[in-house]
């Protein structure tokens, strides 16, 4: 007899707060009901093959973290700021002016009519079968944030969303964001995930973007670490005609890190550019799963991901490009390069191409390697210390991607964090 698959503990299906408009409460309940028999991923679950062993949810972690009034880290940001603390948006810790053509609203502040409209659209950018845990977020969010840009709206500064868990006790956080970018609107949204506590927590986040015709959205997503945090996140994007989505995902490893990024190019001439950098060390883990659906013709996608794994850490990249039959003249480029900084580190990479149209340009490449010995020798032969030479070469591997991060302050934050990584990764060099 086969052992019964282990299911998601029912403890994880109990949302606490009820202070939401009825349509959202109904949606939450419906999703919860659908997850009652959700099998937990195992080695045999194709899209969790390399990562299931890192997922260690306990019932103590199931309870929603208490809402905290103030953030632990008073992060100054060069732009507008929305603070999500323990999964819920906290107005007192947020700073942004009243913006005429940009609405930033909590789910709990929506009218029933607005909530009903939103309930229709939540999850619409993500495929529930492929992204199992996005459904859990929908079953559990305590509140959420909807950002609506009216047609032509241009946000003059980046909007920072700081996701912080102040984990003084075990628990879960389910931050939820829905961004609706109207025709020809423009916004840069920076999401930063940080943690200031010690107890074991589970963060299950979902951010969705719908881009109307001509909209231009840049999303920077920083996953800054936290050795106590298991984080499963998803980003879903749908793009209409001639819209542009640019994403910069920078991730530092943790006990479990998983990010699913799904982009659907639904309107002719839409374009997406996805950059990703992952660095892991110690026994950390990070898993990126990306999917680009070329649904409409004449769309361009360009994806560049780099993983660096030190010590005994483990990075995973799975990049899928799916070109639908009608998506003629698609242009898809995917490059994934991986750098192992130690023999104990592991990187698994898998490009998946499914092409059902005949007139397409599609290129992909994946490599795994180590720092080049000859290059190292060349650098040290010029008096550069071995440690610094290692840093230079490792940085060279991701320079281009870091340089492309369009907000300087974020670039600096990333560089500082990278320097800490190098300090540790090369301390014995």
């Amino acid at each position, binding site marked *: 007899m086969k052992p019964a698959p282990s299911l998601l503990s029912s403890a994880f299906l109990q949302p606490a707060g009820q202070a939401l408009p009825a349509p959202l409460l109904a949606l939450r309940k419906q999703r919860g009901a659908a997850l009652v028999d959700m099998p937990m991923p195992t080695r045999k679950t194709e899209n969790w093959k390399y990562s299931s062993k890192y997922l260690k949810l306990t019932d103590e972690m199931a309870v929603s973290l208490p809402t905290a009034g103030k953030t632990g880290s008073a992060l100054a940001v060069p732009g507008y700021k929305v603070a999500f603390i323990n999964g819920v948006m906290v107005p007192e810790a947020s700073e942004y002016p009243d913006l005429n053509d940009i609405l930033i609203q909590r789910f709990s502040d929506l009218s029933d009519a607005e909530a009903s409209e939103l309930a229709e659209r939540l999850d619409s950018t993500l495929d529930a079968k492929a992204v199992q845990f996005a459904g859990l977020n929908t079953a559990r969010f305590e509140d959420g944030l909807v950002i609506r840009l009216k047609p032509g709206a241009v946000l003059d500064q980046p909007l920072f969303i700081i996701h912080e868990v102040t984990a003084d006790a075990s628990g879960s956080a389910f931050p939820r964001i829905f961004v609706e970018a109207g025709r020809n609107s423009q916004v840069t949204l920076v999401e930063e995930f940080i943690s200031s506590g010690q107890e074991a927590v589970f963060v299950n986040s979902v951010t969705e973007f719908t881009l109307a015709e001509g909209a231009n959205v840049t999303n920077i997503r920083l996953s800054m670490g936290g050795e106590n945090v298991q984080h499963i996140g998803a980003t879903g994007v749908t793009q209409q005609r001639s819209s542009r989505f640019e994403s910069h995902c920078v991730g530092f490893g943790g006990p479990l890190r998983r990010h699913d990024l799904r982009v659907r190019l639904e309107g002719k001439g839409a374009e997406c550019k996805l950059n990703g950098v992952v660095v892991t060390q110690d026994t950390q883990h990070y898993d990126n799963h990306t999917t680009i659906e070329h649904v409409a013709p004449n769309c361009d996608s360009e994806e560049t991901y780099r993983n660096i794994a030190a010590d005994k850490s483990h990075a995973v990249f799975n990049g899928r490009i799916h070109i639908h039959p009608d998506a003629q003249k698609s242009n898809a480029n995917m490059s994934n390069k991986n750098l192992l900084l130690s023999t104990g580190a592991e990187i698994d990479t898998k490009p998946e191409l499914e092409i059902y149209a005949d007139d397409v340009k599609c290129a992909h490449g994946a490599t795994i390697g180590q720092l080049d010995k000859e290059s190292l020798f*060349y650098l*040290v032969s010029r008096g550069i210390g071995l440690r610094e030479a290692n840093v230079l070469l490792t940085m060279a591997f991701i320079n281009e991607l870091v340089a492309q991060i369009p907000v300087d302050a974020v670039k600096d934050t990333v560089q500082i964090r990278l320097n800490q990584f190098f300090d540790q990764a090369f301390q014995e060099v």
Partner: protein
Amino acid sequence: MLSIKNLHASVEGKEILKGINLEIKAGEVHAIMGPNGSGKSTLAQVLAGNDAFEVTSGSVTMHGEDLLEKATEERARDGVFLAFQYPVEIPGVSNLQFMRTSVNAMRHHRGESEMNAAEFMKMAREISKQVDLDPAFLKRGVNEGFSGGEKKRNEIMQALMLQPKLAILDETDSGLDIDALKVVSDGVNALRAEDRAILMVTHYQRLLDHIVPDFVHVLAEGKIVKSGGRELALELEERGYAWLGIKDDETAASSALSNSAN
């Protein structure tokens, strides 16, 4: 300045250097010639500290200190410079960043303050003109997409910038056209100084028309088989290596017949 005694070195278990003896004094220019595969680059790499090569016996001292026990970067900081036969391309690290890091590592070692970006740029621009490299190259990756000749000029540029005590030039003349050869040899001549020694490795003698060596050594099968003054190079050009009983895969040692960038 440099004293090499009975140096043996091997790579992957195969002995390449079989007892090299060589004394180089400050102010001198030595040329090492020899057929392909005789071990010239191996000697250069061993002196610079490439641990792909294993020193099995013998000693090398510089200014009386044991060179072999020092790490590559320490040798460099003490003034050893190797112009590579095959300079490495390093995309993602700009020439500027690379050279500035190098210059500052040396300055740091000498207890001097770091050069700031502006000071460095000024110096780099001047020297790049001296070797006829467009300063725009500084922004590109290290040797990235450089032609063979540009790579060699870049090596000389670095030597001029770092002002080493011992400059080892490994086939810096190969793959150069006449004009580039002139630029490179002017650069090398500019390096000549009383407190500096130059060890030139070359397969051909044409470089020696421009840079007149004080001593010429012939390396064959891992040993120096003959040493002499500059007339030895001329003799080699005329008579080839066979005259010394050395097998060579080319009929004459003269580069006039060949452009092979070995």
